């Protein structure tokens, strides 16, 4: 089948995560690469028939049974109508596309994952992959921030991983809303401030970042101050990836295409580029 034609998928579960974000579970034909052989950080193109198609990062881990988890914020032309989908509804999927996080490079390293808001979605995929082979890594740290406690995605899961000793977890929210009812140890701080809590061995640490583009420059410069080389910092970029196969011309970052060469780039690849961070 050609990569431009979506394959059918059926919504098998919908879970409202926050006021504007849902976790969709889709089921597609078992063994199809779109479900069975993606890497954390890659994305797929999700079609809502009659409405349109959008790029969405995988947020789960490949399973042979053909099920896919996608975390969707309902803000756009396609994602708004997606709020109404229910189990049994038909959608279409194409993928997997792009280059994900460099898992082989992470072997034997300490890992710091930095997630802001919806950026937790692709990093959850990475986190699940790392936890699955927890023996391959040294430390596994997750810094996770959101607007408010209610917007911290996958919180129960993260707290459980922490409780079981799989990860070190630091949480923050922008606003001190009802932090009292929030998770333990959740600070009122912006994402870069969580870096101050870390004592890292820069020579054996890799960092994976996904969050609002506005925090990237600050995060990167702090990490560099902490002694991290650019090649050890990976960022997942958001762009308008209409076709997913390098043809529609919308998603270039410098001269690289986010849909084919990314969406995960090492900071070394982005140095000097006009990476408009909106």
């Amino acid at each position, binding site marked *: 089948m050609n990569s431009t*034609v979506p394959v059918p998928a059926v919504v098998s579960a919908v879970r409202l995560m926050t006021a504007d974000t849902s976790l969709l579970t889709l089921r597609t034909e078992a063994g199809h690469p779109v479900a069975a052989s993606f890497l954390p950080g890659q994305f797929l193109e999700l079609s809502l028939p*009659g409405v349109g198609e959008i790029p969405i990062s995988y947020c789960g881990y490949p399973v042979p049974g053909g099920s896919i988890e996608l975390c969707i914020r309902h803000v756009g032309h396609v994602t708004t109508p997606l709020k109404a989908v229910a189990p049994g509804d038909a959608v279409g999927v194409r993928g997997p596309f792009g280059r994900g996080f460099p898992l082989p490079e992470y072997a034997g390293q300490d890992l710091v994952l930095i997630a802001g808001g919806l950026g937790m979605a692709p990093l959850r995929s990475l986190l699940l992959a790392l936890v699955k082979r927890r023996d391959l890594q040294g430390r596994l740290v997750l810094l996770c921030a959101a607007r408010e406690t209610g917007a911290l995605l996958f919180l129960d899961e993260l707290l459980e991983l922490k409780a079981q000793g799989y990860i070190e977890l630091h949480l923050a929210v922008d606003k001190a809303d009802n932090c009292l009812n929030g998770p333990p140890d959740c600070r009122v701080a912006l994402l870069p401030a969580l870096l101050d809590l870390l004592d890292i061995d820069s020579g054996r640490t890799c960092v994976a970042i996904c969050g609002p583009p506005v925090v990237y420059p600050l995060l990167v410069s702090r990490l560099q101050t902490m002694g991290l080389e650019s090649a050890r910092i990976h960022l997942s970029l958001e762009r*308008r990836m209409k076709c997913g196969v390098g043809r529609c*011309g919308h998603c270039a970052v410098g001269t690289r295409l986010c849909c084919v060469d990314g969406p995960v780039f090492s900071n070394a690849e982005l140095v000097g580029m006009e990476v408009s961070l909106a």
Partner: protein
Amino acid sequence: MATQFIANHNLELLLERLRTYAEVHAPVRGDDGGVRFAALTPGTLPDLAAPRTLLPPKKYLLQPRETILNYTDEAGYQLPSVISSPLILFGLHPCDLAGINYLDQVFTCDDPDPLYAARRSALILVGVSCSPDEFCSCHRSASPLKATSDLFLNVLDGGFAVTSGSPRGDELLDLANGIFEERESAIPEDMRRFFGHAVTAEVRPELDATLPEWQELADRCLGCGVCSICCPTCYCFDVLEFGGLDGRSAARVRQWDNCLFKSHGEVAGGMSFRKNRAERFRYRYRHKYHGFGALQGIPSCVGCGRCRVVCPAGLDLRPLAERLERWLP
């Protein structure tokens, strides 16, 4: 040297023979004076002297707006059936041939675009040499793109020297048996000489955003998109989906897009990665002169001059490129 020569007065005869092989489209001057690639009906001669057509031949490969997928609840998304009968494009200038060569690299790589590939395989290209006018810049350039054709007509005094560039070209030559004469003629320098060079654009990590030209271009750009519509190598497309009133069917459509449009760099929620026109011009420049993705390093301006001719504000990226790009003379 000995060449296959066809006299001007035999051109109509050649076209007649070609029409027995496939429909022939060529530059035709309309009643309004505009020159467009269109079906060449018997008795009409192509306008081979016109410097350029309004739209480049890419319209035969990527239509301005076309359905790329059909959806029904029963069958899911399906490719539309493309019935492409052979079509001869007659009278393509080397720049337009090079433009097709570039589009081929974008759309017929390892994972070809099915609609493009179907149309492309049905096209038979007949090139013709030309002389640059004040808008052309091919002759001030060198390009890694190849101006290849099935048949090429070199303009000589009183006729054309014809060479074949493919087995299909050989077939066409056979078809025109008896119209050609062997003749000793000095062939002027082939316009295709500007193409097919091992030129690689020097891809710098970033363009100097402080150059005043970006803002000057931005201030004057109307955002009308005609620079890319008329460009033989601009291929950016937007994708839209239209549901049927039955609630069970849909058509997915792609249409020509332009990097100066507001939505080109936007993502869901309205955030834009190219908010102002100066940024968008740098994006355009990078795409044209440095190349994106797998085509990084391959400059795609073929020097046809269309963008300069059609821009209502008379904007032109070329002088800036000639200043910034060392591979351009």
